[in-house]
């Protein structure tokens, strides 16, 4: 009359084990779920009942009490359906409880008894250790990301019962259909001309520098941003698992291999709400936001000035610490959020163009720039003017350099940075710069002149030095940093300031 079945629930990107306890006793026929279920969880009653009946099982007309332990933690989603169904079968002796001892179940049930996948299978499966986990067939690869569980699948409840009773073998899922059939990522080869923007993308990828593209419509800002992830090295072990967990928890479709190895690219629209951006949301789920979905990849904010100021402000913590802490009354989660920020904006409401071409009034231009200014503008190491490509370049023969060939340089430069200081150049602290990235006398003189002329602020000074270091790494130059790299770095943060004052 009692059974306990193992499953898991999701908070943020972390699964935690849940025991689904089913008790069937005397009393008026009824069904109660306790243990802080959310709405989807509570509705499991009707799905499970229909699924059992359509699978040829019996529904006990007794008092059914279900407890989701630990009962003080909120449970969300339909992932507990299957465990609940199996628990009822075991409690009514339609299945032997001993068969269940080393199994866990993570799937939603259809009314016809079929198993369906739920978001967050990867973290859910990793929460239940030392047992075999049954998931819906589509979740199979995702579940295998969480080593070292054994992952089993069944198409529907009927088949599952048969397998558990050892009346038929578990369906094997083969791995051999995994191949590189995914759409290849956008390649830098398609970008014609625009040598500055290409270089900026390369520098951003190599040094982890946030970049702001400034230019009128049709300049190819979005096109460039989309290609930056392709310049980053493929995700390695720890990052790949983190990214997979986040994407799984958010219910994004994962690559067929299961593990996400390509740096993600996220481009939320500027109407994005605070919660969409940083994560959270009502209920117990704490869905990861765009900053986490862009973890280890690129977060692209088109029309960055149009985002709500509070949303932009909220990016500061993740930009500094590489993670985001979301606190709610009954849960606090920390999600990874280390991303490369790529912004795009028009120089003014009319789209600008060369000097003397802008037709905006002073006030409207000042208003436009004011929205951009402040803390977020400070985070961009690179500010690049992107003008529409010259038709000659667009029509000219020959593609640009391919992403793969740029990536080789990026990987080499990144390795230099990591060997030197254990992190990418953009993350170097101001205090470290003198020891890690000394300047030549000539470079120092250049920077001094810019500072004295008021074209560079203290903060900008450090940013320029970091970018210069990356440029020097890309050129394969040895320390100290030469004048040409410092001057180039200065040129790479001009595009926006009205009178050439680089912040």
């Amino acid at each position, binding site marked *: 009359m009692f059974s306990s079945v193992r499953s898991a629930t999701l908070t943020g990107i972390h699964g935690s084990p849940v025991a689904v306890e089913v008790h069937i006793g005397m009393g008026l026929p009824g069904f109660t779920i306790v243990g802080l279920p959310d709405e989807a969880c509570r509705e499991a009653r009707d799905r499970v009942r229909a699924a059992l009946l359509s699978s040829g099982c019996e529904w006990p007309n007794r008092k059914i009490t279900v407890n989701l332990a630990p009962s003080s933690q909120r449970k969300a989603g339909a992932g507990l359906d299957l465990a609940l169904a199996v628990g009822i079968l075991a409690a009514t002796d339609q299945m032997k409880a001993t068969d269940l001892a080393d199994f866990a179940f993570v799937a939603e049930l259809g009314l016809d008894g079929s198993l369906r996948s739920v978001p967050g299978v990867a973290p859910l499966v990793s929460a239940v250790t030392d047992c075999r986990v049954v998931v819906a067939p589509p979740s199979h690869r995702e579940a295998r990301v969480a080593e070292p569980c054994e992952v089993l699948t069944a198409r529907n409840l009927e088949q599952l019962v048969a397998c558990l009773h050892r009346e038929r073998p578990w369906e094997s899922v083969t791995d051999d259909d995994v191949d590189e059939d995914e759409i290849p990522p956008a390649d830098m080869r398609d970008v014609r*001309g625009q040598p500055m923007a290409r270089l900026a993308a390369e520098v951003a990828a190599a040094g982890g520098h946030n970049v702001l593209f400034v230019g009128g419509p049709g300049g190819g800002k979005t096109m460039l941003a989309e290609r930056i992830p392709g310049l980053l090295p493929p995700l390695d072990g720890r990052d790949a698992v983190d990214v997979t967990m986040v994407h799984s928890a958010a219910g994004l479709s994962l690559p067929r291999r299961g593990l996400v190895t390509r740096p993600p690219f996220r481009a939320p629209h500027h109407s994005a709400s605070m919660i969409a951006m940083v994560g959270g949301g009502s209920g117990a789920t704490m869905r990861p936001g765009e900053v986490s979905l862009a973890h280890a990849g690129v977060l692209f904010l088109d029309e960055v000035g149009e985002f709500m100021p509070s949303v932009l402000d909220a990016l500061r913590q993740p930009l500094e610490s590489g993670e985001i802490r979301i606190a709610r009354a009954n849960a606090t989660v920390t999600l990874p959020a280390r991303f490369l920020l790529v912004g795009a904006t028009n120089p003014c409401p009319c789209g600008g*163009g060369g000097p*003397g071409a*802008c037709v905006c009034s*002073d006030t409207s231009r000042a208003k436009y720039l004011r929205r951009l200014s402040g803390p977020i503008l400070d985070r961009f190491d690179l500010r690049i003017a992107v*003008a529409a490509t010259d038709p000659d370049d667009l029509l000219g023969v020959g593609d640009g350099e391919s992403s793969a060939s740029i990536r080789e340089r990026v990987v080499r430069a990144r390795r230099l940075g990591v060997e030197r200081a254990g992190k990418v150049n953009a993350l170097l602290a101001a205090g470290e710069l003198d020891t890690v990235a000394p300047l030549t006398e000539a470079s120092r003189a250049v920077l001094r002149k810019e500072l004295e002329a008021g074209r560079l602020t203290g903060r900008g000074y450090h940013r320029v030095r970091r970018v210069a270091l990356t*440029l020097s790494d890309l050129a394969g130059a040895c320390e100290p940093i030469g004048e*040409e790299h410092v*001057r180039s770095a200065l*040129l790479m943060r001009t595009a926006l300031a009205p009178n050439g004052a680089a912040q």
Partner: protein
Amino acid sequence: MSGLPMWAYAAALCTRRGVSRRKAGGDLLRLDADVAWEEAGGNDETEVAQLYESCVENGVRVVTVQDPDFPSPLFFSGGVPILFVRGSLSVLGQRRVGIIGTRTPTPSGVYTARDFGEQLAAHGVAVVSGLAKGIDGAAHDGMRARHEMHPGDGAAGRPIAVVGSGLDIVYPKANRKLWEWVGECGVLLSEYPPGAPAEAHHFPQRNRIIASLSEIIVVVESRTTGGSMITVREAIRRGVDVHAVPGSPRVASAGGTNLLIQQGCGTVTDATDILAALSLEHSRTDLRRVDDREHPESGDLDVLEACSNGPVTLDQLMIATGRELSSIAVSLGRLHAQGWVMEERGWWEALLLGRGRHAGYCIT
């Protein structure tokens, strides 16, 4: 009658609602100001007293068509019965060139306007302008540079600014220092009493005064529409010669000046041309002052050349020269320090003075 001066009544008359400027001017020529004011329906002396006080407070003088030192060009062109003045009207005795242009110029437009201002100051020619952002301000700023370089040069040309607001309302605010300097060194003129805000409809009227006060008008950079073109139209109506500085056909803010040239107005590329248009002695040696900039290094010439046909982006520079950013960066840094190029929002432009003066190593 209280002891208020006549000019206060004149000011009250001219700023009275429902009294056109033309009518006010006619009345002032016929009658005493206080009588004219009463005829126009004025009966509240406190109104006059207030105007009087705000003028005195702000150091603003009032001249009307009745006054002997009312600027004669305005007297004849009509429609301007009164001027609020700060500074010395004697500046109007100098030769006067109006320098006007867009509020959103290119760096080279600014450079040209400054250069004209500086050169004309050196040659004792006054510059009439509107103290607006961009070309207007740059022309007077160039004069100021000359005055600061040679303080105490009594013969230097002085600034004449005609503004569209009360003389105590600085517009645009960014020009405050320049505004004050003009008031001290030259003369600030306005049709509007102290406290009057800068309103859009004031400016076309202001432009008519600029056109009237100038012997010739030089348009440095202008779009095909805008305030400068209004000034040009007014100047042509008054028989004032208009000259324009040619610009690149690819720069929107030179569209108006190029159009003027196509339509046959005089071309000015150098302060010498302006002096010639004024029939002034223009062969004095110090005009052909030696360019004190260092010669660009031979390795930087390709970059300078690429910048010399209007503003270019770094992209265009990289494509045109085929050089790496790092090497262009060094060249640009050097050229910038030497004063050969200017940068604005990522656009670079060469600063070449006048025609052919540096032809040897600038333009190929």
